């Protein structure tokens, strides 16, 4: 049966406060950290303090005798090699967290300390081969990837003006406010329950079931493993699956026959809980005199830590703008924790390597950078205009043009933009912009939702999906209420438990485009079931009955029943409906424009740069974002504002600082790993560029991508000098001013 959104929408697209706001604000909401089970033990992980070492001896005998210690689980053994400072060696559970922390320090362990490399530039200088074997080799520097466009050479020749620059973004950490971790408890029935801080409720249970049934050859069907995540304090791509602490907590709980809580402390959270890879690159761009881009050349590198993945989206360089290209990327493996997906993985890096040089070029051309961008936007693909008129490819030019217009108007670009560095005074104003793009389609795997209507008129919407703080819970209630003619507050949510049906991890901005259609289908099916079941008792044909706000109406007899009265006719039955959604469902012709993929986005930032101190204050950011059909305008705007805040922190503050000598991160805290506070926040103006005809598209990731680039370009506009690397610290701003000869 065809699926489609209601033509007339009462709630969808409105601003609905998140339903769990009050319980979160008052502390009643229980996060994983807040779960305390009877007899629960506290676990900590022993981590390697060295960036590269081999375990020479390991003796936990003393530790076992320490007060309160109930179980120890070895992760590594004598002879094992460790490749980064913070790598997990063993887990230990005790009756209190304090006892566990003391006991873990009583583990006697000797290391053969081996050479390490923690800085990208050191590996480039000399490959010390300090990392784990990959393809049989221990090289820190992996073979370069390169590619060039057929049109590149001609483009380079055609360039009347060229600009070169070096730009970069460092490794930053996820810094989830709620750290990684969980409480694990084995039940009388041999089943396992975890209360986990995860972005993948269903997947975490699934992985734990596989891990333990495989390892211990025990009968642990998925039905006996339950993951509960009612509330969650941020993941940003770093919290898929049980993770090492999930496995260790379950092992310790099994060994100690008691529930175990294992939540990372702040230092572990930062060091081991996830990081975004760095990207540094030399970029050269060519253009005609009137600003038509002709060639783009990038030679970049970055570190995924001990991982091996790219640190840019190689095939999307240059970013957004179609320019004949030549590109090269080198992965540098360092003795640091492996990178994890982080909110729009690799797109901020691509944005860095494209958007900064555009403004440098505009300055050389004497052009307004907004005009330069307009001139070089991707075109609407004529083929797609015919075959898929609502796809991003068909609409790219239209969307970006319109978004730039809107953003420019909201930011008063015409009034505020001035040639770079051309303002008086010590504290200089600047304005800059940047563009981004993202997908946001439905997940390829199944997402389910069920809706049940009871005879007393109460309604339950049930799904295993997680609400990372995005507002998904509120969205599920909103859609159910829309279809049933109720208010969102009337919907009881059973949410965030793996036994509530299949769902996928919240990655790739896939949650809302997967869950919203599943909810739509479930609520629609429940409604139809209700109407079918009560029709005879209302002396109606089901097809005569429709749902109105709080009522059921017989359109033939022009008769209405109050919702509750109508539901009472269910007597001893329930009405139920189930719905699911996948990417494949979204591409079926019958289901056109229910969910879609592909967004643009434009951000404009304003800054004040104190040219004596180098201190940058971002005063205002306009973020224009399309995301197809907006479901809940308030939480959607909130997502965009959250992305902007995160992007501002990338721009001004965040940096993982590794120490060359010790191989450890020196700022694994919230003191010197800087995150802006309330006084550092700009005015944030969010404009959602509505395109309801495209269906639902996820928007969790795109708004984080271009903020730092817009701020970087605003600084360039303010001082006429390029601060080329984030974070834009006072030191770097002063250095850029000095290089330009303008420092006071």
């Amino acid at each position, binding site marked *: 049966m065809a699926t489609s959104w209601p033509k007339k929408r009462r709630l969808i697209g409105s601003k609905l406060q998140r339903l769990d706001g009050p319980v979160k604000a008052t502390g009643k909401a229980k996060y994983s950290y807040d779960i305390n089970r009877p007899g629960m033990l506290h676990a900590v992980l022993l981590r390697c303090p060295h960036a590269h070492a081999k375990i020479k001896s390991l003796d936990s005998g003393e530790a076992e005798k320490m007060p309160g210690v109930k179980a120890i689980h070895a992760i590594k053994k004598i002879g094992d090699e460790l490749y980064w400072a913070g790598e997990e060696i063993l887990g230990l559970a005790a009756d209190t967290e304090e006892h566990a922390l*003391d006991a873990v320090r009583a583990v006697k362990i000797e290391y053969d300390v081996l050479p390490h490399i923690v800085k990208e530039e050191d590996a480039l200088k000399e490959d010390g081969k300090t990392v784990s074997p990959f393809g049989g080799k221990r090289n820190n520097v992996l073979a370069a990837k390169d590619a060039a466009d057929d049109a590149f050479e001609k483009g380079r020749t055609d360039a009347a003006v060229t600009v070169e620059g070096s730009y970069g973004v460092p490794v930053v950490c996820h810094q989830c406010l709620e750290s990684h971790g969980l409480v694990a408890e084995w039940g009388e029935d041999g089943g396992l329950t975890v209360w986990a801080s995860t972005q993948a409720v269903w997947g975490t249970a699934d992985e734990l079931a596989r891990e333990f049934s495989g390892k211990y050859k025990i009968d642990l069907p998925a039905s006996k493993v339950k993951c509960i995540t009612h509330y969650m304090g941020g993941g940003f791509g770093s919290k898929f699956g049980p993770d090492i602490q999930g496995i260790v907590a379950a092992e310790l709980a099994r060994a100690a026959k008691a529930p175990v809580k294992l939540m990372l402390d702040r230092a572990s959270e930062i060091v081991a809980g996830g990081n975004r890879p760095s990207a540094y690159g030399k970029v050269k761009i060519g253009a005609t005199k009137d600003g038509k881009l002709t060639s783009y050349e990038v030679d970049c590198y970055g570190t995924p830590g001990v991982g091996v993945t790219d640190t840019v989206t190689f095939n999307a360089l240059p970013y957004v703008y179609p320019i004949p290209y030549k590109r090269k990327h080198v992965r540098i493996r360092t003795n640091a924790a492996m990178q994890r997906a982080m909110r729009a993985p690799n797109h901020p890096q691509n944005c860095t390597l494209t958007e900064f040089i555009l403004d440098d070029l505009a300055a050389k051309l004497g052009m307004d950078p907004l005009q330069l961008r307009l001139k070089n936007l991707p075109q609407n693909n004529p083929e797609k205009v015919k075959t898929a008129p609502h796809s991003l490819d068909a609409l790219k030019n239209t969307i970006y043009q319109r978004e730039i217009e809107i953003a420019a108007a909201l930011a008063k670009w015409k009034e505020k933009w001035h040639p770079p560095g051309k303002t008086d005074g010590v504290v200089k104003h600047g304005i800059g912009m940047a563009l981004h793009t993202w997908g946001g389609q439905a997940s390829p795997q199944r997402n389910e939702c069920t809706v049940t209507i009871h005879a007393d008129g109460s309604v339950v919407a049930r799904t295993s999906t997680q609400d990372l703080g995005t507002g998904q819970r509120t969205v599920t209630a909103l859609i159910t209420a829309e279809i049933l003619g109720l208010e969102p507050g009337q919907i009881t949510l059973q949410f965030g438990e793996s036994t509530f049906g299949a769902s996928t991890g919240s990655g790739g901005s896939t949650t809302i485009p997967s869950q919203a259609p599943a909810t739509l289908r479930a609520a629609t099916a429940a409604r139809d079931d209700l109407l079918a079941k009560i029709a005879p008792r209302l002396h109606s044909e089901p097809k005569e009955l429709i749902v109105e706000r709080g009522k059921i109406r017989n359109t033939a007899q022009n008769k209405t029943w109050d919702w509750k009265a109508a539901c009472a006719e269910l007597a001893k039955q329930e009405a139920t409906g189930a719905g699911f959604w996948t990417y494949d469902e979204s591409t079926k012709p019958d289901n056109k424009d229910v969910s879609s993929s592909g967004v643009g986005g434009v951000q404009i930032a304003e800054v004040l740069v104190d040219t004596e*101190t180098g201190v940058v204050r971002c005063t205002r950011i306009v973020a224009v974002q399309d995301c197809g059909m907006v479901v809940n305008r308030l939480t959607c705007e909130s997502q965009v504002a959250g992305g902007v805040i995160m992007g501002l922190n990338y721009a001004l503050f965040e940096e993982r600082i590794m120490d060359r000598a010790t191989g450890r991160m020196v700022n694994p805290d919230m*003191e010197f790993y800087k995150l802006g*506070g309330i006084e550092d926040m700009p005015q944030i103006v969010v404009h959602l560029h509505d395109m309801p005809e495209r269906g639902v598209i996820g928007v969790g990731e795109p708004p984080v991508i271009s903020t730092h680039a817009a701020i970087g370009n605003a600084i360039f506009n303010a001082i006429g000098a390029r601060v080329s690397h984030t974070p834009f610290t006072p030191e770097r701003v002063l250095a850029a001013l000095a290089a330009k000869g303008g420092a006071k």
Partner: protein
Amino acid sequence: MKNFSYYRPKTAEQAVALLDDKWGTTELLAGGTDLLDLQKEYIAQPDKVITLRDVGINQLRLDGLDKKPDDFILGAGMTLAEIAAHRGLKDAFPALTTAAGDIGGPQIRNMGTLGGNLCQRNRCWYFRDEHTPCLLKGGDKCFAIDGENRYHAIFTQGHKCVMVNPSTLAPVLIALGASAEVMGPKGKRTVKLADFFHAPSSASEREHVLKPNELVLSVTIPYHHLKNASYEVRHKQSYDWPLVQAAVAFKYEDNKATDVRIVLGHVAPTPHVAEAAAKALEGKEVTEATASAAGEAAAQGAMPLSQNAYKVKLVAVAVKRALLTAAGHKKYWEV
């Protein structure tokens, strides 16, 4: 955190009697914003923790104003929030209330105390890392000298450890000519704040000159009607340490600055008295030109490390801005 015995003495004498005569085994607990962190990180591992909450040093002694009208006596247990909000202090010593009000966030200011601010341990990230055996933890080298030192000292002369003293009240109090009343086993003594701080280079030293069995009872600030101000250059506006801080105080009569004191914070292991800067301004009107010149003089002699030369520039700016603020000039940097 290592287990410890907790003591709650009723008097300063009782507190002193509980203290050991060597560092490390006993610790005084005031607001706890530093000590508890150090204990949780296994940097401080005392056997005894002695809380000062009941020893009666929490007051600003306003009655002292009657007896010695020239002095303000601040109990060491006054919180930073109390200092920041005190109207009398604000009128007399805006440098102090500004500095106190800029420390940390509200939670820190509500718990942190004057005495604790003066006696807190430094924030060097090597010192604070459990696994790094730096000089102050009995090791044989300072890791910052050749390591990550962007926030470290720029006046490094003769110092084996190049951390910066973290107190932002200290430069102000030194500029204002304050002194601390200290109690030890032999009774009370007075230590000028200018003589209070020390650059440690081993585990048996602290950032100040107090003996392990001494505690700060109060700080007395003489009221000499000095113009005064404190200016911090900070990376973040919310909740951050200053990159550099300048505290200034001077008599200002007939547009002439005399008795000039300029003290820098966060540039050396102790608060750094910039004598050349004070001398540069002595007897002159405070103008942008004279303030700039004093700022340049303050930066003279800096020997920055590999990553913190930028702080030398910031010293000059901070001094200039503090002087202009104290003299009541328009803050040209605020738009």
